[in-house]
Every structure is written in C-alpha cells, then in structure tokens.
C-alpha cells in the first residue's frame, strides 16, 4: 500500500493535480436503509472502513449486497440514514446539497455500467460537460478535454456521437469525462459489466494506469473476483449490506 502511494506521487506528471496523501475515504458505521412497506431494507448496514489516498479498491459481493449503495454514498449522490462518511476528512452526511454537488464536481469522478453518455452530444461535448458545471474558463476547457480524451486514446473520435462508438470506446469516453475535472477519487460501478472480456480488460488496464500515473484513488464495484484480484490492491467483499471480508489480492 505504502509502495503504491510513493510510486503514484513520484509519477505524477506535471500539470496534473497531485493526489492527496493520507486518507481518501473513511466511513464510520455508515448505514443506508430503505423502508419497503412493513420491512426495512438495510442496503448498507453499519459499514466502517478506511481507504487510503492512491488505493485501488475493488468492492465485491453478490447482486443486492449493497455495493452500489455504498458507492453512491461515497459519491455524494445519496445520503446515509445514520453514521458518517468522510471524503478527505469532510463529513458528507453533514454537507448541504450545494456542497455535495461541489464534492461531486471537484473531488469525485464517476463511471457507470451503462456508460451514460448524453446521446445528442459529441464525445468532445460529453467530456466538456463537467467543466461547464464546474464553471471552468472556456479557453482552458479545450486543452483539458483534449488531455482527458488522449489519456483514454480517443483523440481521433472527438466529433463522434456515442452511437458511433463501440461499447469499449463509450466506456473510455465516460472515463475521460470522469477524469476531465481532475478529481482525487474515481468511483466505478461495474465499469466492465456491459463489455466483453477483452474490452473489459482494456478498461481495467486504463484504470490501473490512471491509478498509478495520477495517483488517483479508485473504488470499483465488480462481481468478477478474478478480474478484481488481477488489478486491484485491496478487495472488500460485501453481503447483505455488511462488509464480510477485507484484504489484498489472494
């Protein structure tokens, strides 16, 4: 773990934001429950964990075990019903919705299983979107978009619409969009779930590269243990909203 951070910091290229050292995400008995009529669904049930800056963590577990819910809590898209969740030591549970939006804008980059590109925008416009929302100066945007798109090797496809791209290309475009505002934490919810295994591996390699060269903290949800073991440094397994195991790759 220490080794990974040192290496990441040493390799931070000029121009990129240096990854913050120390703790990226910390949860303290965080819980998210849903009231479904009579029954209470504990999607995340008092999870306590700490993720160091620069880590590459895989969240494993069967379907419905609460992985996505935990990831959404980290992203600030959802609020815990109890407990605390810190991103760089700021408690998301106590933030105003305005501040949560800022957290999503500046600290978090996120990719989904369904790439979620806006279909009527070109690749370039899709990637530019977070910069618009963050009110980045216009003249700075072009360079930032180019940088992010080049990092995912899509420099030649700037003017293409999502439908003109393959699944792998779409997920790479989504990755560029997640990176463009230089977040410190990258969250990915089953990013390879819609891709064949070769294309999925390409995405995993890109994530590793981003983690190593930019020192970006990555939390990735997956249910494919072998793939998680190949690329992640730490595997957290969930079941029924609880963390049942936590450790390095076997």
């Amino acid at each position, binding site marked *: 773990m220490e080794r990974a951070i040192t290496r990441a910091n040493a390799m931070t290229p000029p121009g990129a934001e240096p990854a913050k050292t120390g703790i990226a995400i910390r949860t303290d008995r965080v819980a998210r429950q849903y009231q479904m009529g009579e029954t209470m669904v504990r999607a995340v049930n008092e999870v306590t964990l700490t993720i160091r800056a620069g880590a590459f963590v895989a969240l494993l577990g069967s379907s419905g075990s609460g992985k996505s819910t935990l990831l*959404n809590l980290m*992203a600030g*898209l*959802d609020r815990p019903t109890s407990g605390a969740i810190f991103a760089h030591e700021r408690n998301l549970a106590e933030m105003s*919705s*305005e501040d949560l*939006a*800022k957290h*999503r*804008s*500046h600290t978090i980059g*996120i990719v*989904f*299983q*369904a790439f*979620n590109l*806006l279909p*009527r*925008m070109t690749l370039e416009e899709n990637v530019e*979107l*977070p910069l*618009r*929302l*963050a*009110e980045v100066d216009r003249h700075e945007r072009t360079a930032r978009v180019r940088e992010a798109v080049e990092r995912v090797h899509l420099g030649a496809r700037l003017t293409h619409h999502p439908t003109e791209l393959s699944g792998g290309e779409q997920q790479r475009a989504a990755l560029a*969009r997640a990176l463009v*505002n230089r977040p410190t934490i990258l969250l990915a*919810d089953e990013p390879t779930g819609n891709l064949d295994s070769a294309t999925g591996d390409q995405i995993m390699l890109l994530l590793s590269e981003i983690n190593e060269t930019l020192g970006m903290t990555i939390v990735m949800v997956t249910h494919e243990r072998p793939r998680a073991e190949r690329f992640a440094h730490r595997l957290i397994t969930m079941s029924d909203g609880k963390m049942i195991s936590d450790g390095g790759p076997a």
Partner: protein
Amino acid sequence: MKTRDLAELAGRNLREAVLRNSLTTLGIAVGVASLVAMLSLGVGLQNLATDRLSRSGLFDAIFVTPRSNFPGFDAPARQAPVPTGPAAPLDEDARKKMASLPNVAEVYPEIRFPTEIHYDGNPYATVVAGVSPSARSDGAFDDMKGSFFSGPAANEAILQIDLARQLSTQPDSLLGKEIVLRYAERQALPPERGDKNSSPNGYSIVPREEKLRIVGIVETEPAAGIGGFGRGRLLIPLQVAETLRAAQTNDLRDLLRDTPSQHSYESLTIRVNGTSHVKDVEDAIKKMDFTAFSLLDASRNLSIVFAVFDLFLGIFGSLALVVASLGIINTLVMAILERRREIGVLKALGAADRDIRRLFFVEAGAMGLLGGIFGVLLGWLIGRAIDFGTNTYLTRRALPSISIVAVPWWMVASAIAFSVAVSLAAGIYPASRAAKLDPVEALRYE
C-alpha cells in the same frame, strides 16, 4: 453553471424536441397575440374617443349658471346645502370677476335668440347663436366649407347645413352671398318723472335689420347639446351677437326681478387654460355662489369606463396566455420524464439542484420570450387587419378613415415581459420537480 453555458444547454434541449417546443411556443405566441390585439383595440378606441372629445373643446370648458337655475345637471346631493336668499346675479360684474380668476382664458355668454332672416326675397325663421373666437379650434369647424369668421367683430355668418339646405338646393353656392337678419332690439323706456333711482321703466321692442355675408357652412352643430342648449343654426361672431343686444330669453326674468338695469346672462361659458385647471376654477366659481358644471367629471368617468373595458379585454386576452402556460407546464413535465437519466447524469457530474432548476427556467423563459416576440408581431398584424377592415367599411360609406387599433411601445415591451413572466411562473413547478429528482433513482441501471 455560467449563464452562457446554461443558455447553450437550454438551447440544445429546446432544439432536441423542436416540434413539441415550437408548438408550445406557438401556443404562447397565440396567447400573447390575443392579448395584444385586445389591448391595442382598447387603447386605440380610448385614444380615438379622448382625441375626439378633447378636440371638441368640451373638456377645458366650465358652464356657469345662476344657482338653482340648472336643475338637470346637479344631482340633489351636490346641491345641498341649499343656501337661502336670492341667487347671485350672473351679470357683467360676475363675468369680469370670473375673467380675472387665474388660468381663465375667456368668459363668454351663451347668446341665442330666435330671428327671421331674408334671403333671395324669402323669409326664414331660425335661431341665431354667438360663436366665441376660441371655438375655431373646436373641431366642429374642422370639416367646414368656406372659412371661419375673419375677425371677432366681422359681419359674417356661418350656416348650419340644414339651414343652408333650406335656403338653397345647392348649399355650396351660398358662400359669399348676403343675408339680412331681422331681429328685435330692446330699448329701455325712459324712467318715469320723479323716480329717485331713475331706473328704466321697462323695455320697448324695436325691429331692426343687419346684413351678414355667408363665409362658411358647417356640418355639425358646434357644441350642440352641452347643458341641453342647441346652439342655433345661424352662427355669427359672439361680439356681433352681443352688440346686437338682442332680446334674450332671460329678459322676462330681468323684468320680473327688481333690477332691470342690470343685464344678466342666462349662462356663461368659461374656457380654462388646460384641463388641469378646470377643478380649481370650478371650485372658485362655486364659491361665488353660482352653479358650475364641467365635463371633467364626465371625462373622469370615461377613463374609469375605459379602464374597466381594458381590464376585461386584458382578462380575455390573458385567458389564451393562461392556456398557453399550461402548455409550457405540460411540455416541461414531459421533458423531465424524457430527460430523467440526463438529469441524473448532470447531477452525478456535479450539477447542483439550482443548476437543474435554472436550466428548466431558462428553457421556459426562452419559450416565453420567443412566443412573446412572435405573439406581439402576430397581435400587431391582427390589429392592422382590424384597422383595414374597419376602414374599408368606412370608406365604402364615404366616412373619413380612422385608426382604432394602437400598439404603443409600452405595450410591446410589457406584452413580451408578461409572456416571459407567465412562462417562468409556468416553469416553477417543472423546474423544482426536475431539481428534486433523485439521481440514484434516475441512474439506476435495470
């Protein structure tokens, strides 16, 4: 999000559902057009009415009669409390006093008397009336044939068209001709011997003649109907009428009263410098114990009538806009359903609730703005069509053309502003609903 980016995204969204948004915008445009058409008709008719009325010279005039001599015009409430004792005489002194009041331009009597005229050897009975020089601007003389009196004391006459038709089958040929006016002059009888106050003993009526040249023929009876007076059919300069010392209707009363030496008027007309002074002068006259009446009260009522009229036109016009605003709500709520995932993505990428709300507001406002501009244009065209239709009708009846529709700039500006405001109001519900959308729900992958 910065305004420019917001506008760009909103513009993009509007173009994406171009048919639906165009139809919604068209709905607003029709609403605004109906509002503009209604209001411009109201304003146009009001302009027309006030213009005609102010040119009639009725609104800067005050009609004065001796107290209690004007029962038709004073509501009982206005006359109370009724002072007892003899009414102040409306005589030359009173006239001078009135003329010296501030902002009084002119005080002139209503001089009217029955007479007999001779033209071409034939006698005609008619009523002669004195016309003040200021009446020239009254509008009644605007469409006259010939010309107004050359001077205040000219021995000239203007014929009312009905009289002219009586005199000749070709009224126009009368211009420049002479008529002879026969009238009765009052002459004071010498006082009886030994009478201390040496007041005349009464009047004798002496028949006289006066030659008048016809200078004009007028269609309408000028200032007819004010206070119930018709003005007569043979119009002569007021000064001429006064010097004729004609037998007036109030002579009998003068005789019955104890002061026959003092010639008194049946009524006086006061012209004021501008309608704003009418109230003050009217009050001053009332303090002098005369009955005063002006059409200002009537004109105030007229403005109220028009305000109510405009209000109703506005309400009916706005109804279409209200319906159009339902269209906006419908369109935007549909857009939320369609753009659920997109809103979720925007939030995941850092959009605040406020950004989403503003995005929907900008879309609603843009439809309102476009609809407003287009609607004003459409409303103006409808107005032109109304004007055109009316004038075609008028010309066919050989009447002068008029403009009954007016679209002033304030109406253009406020119609567009109103359209935007209504659209924004319609956007409140969809915008806040979109802003409150839960991104986790919106992004859930099935």
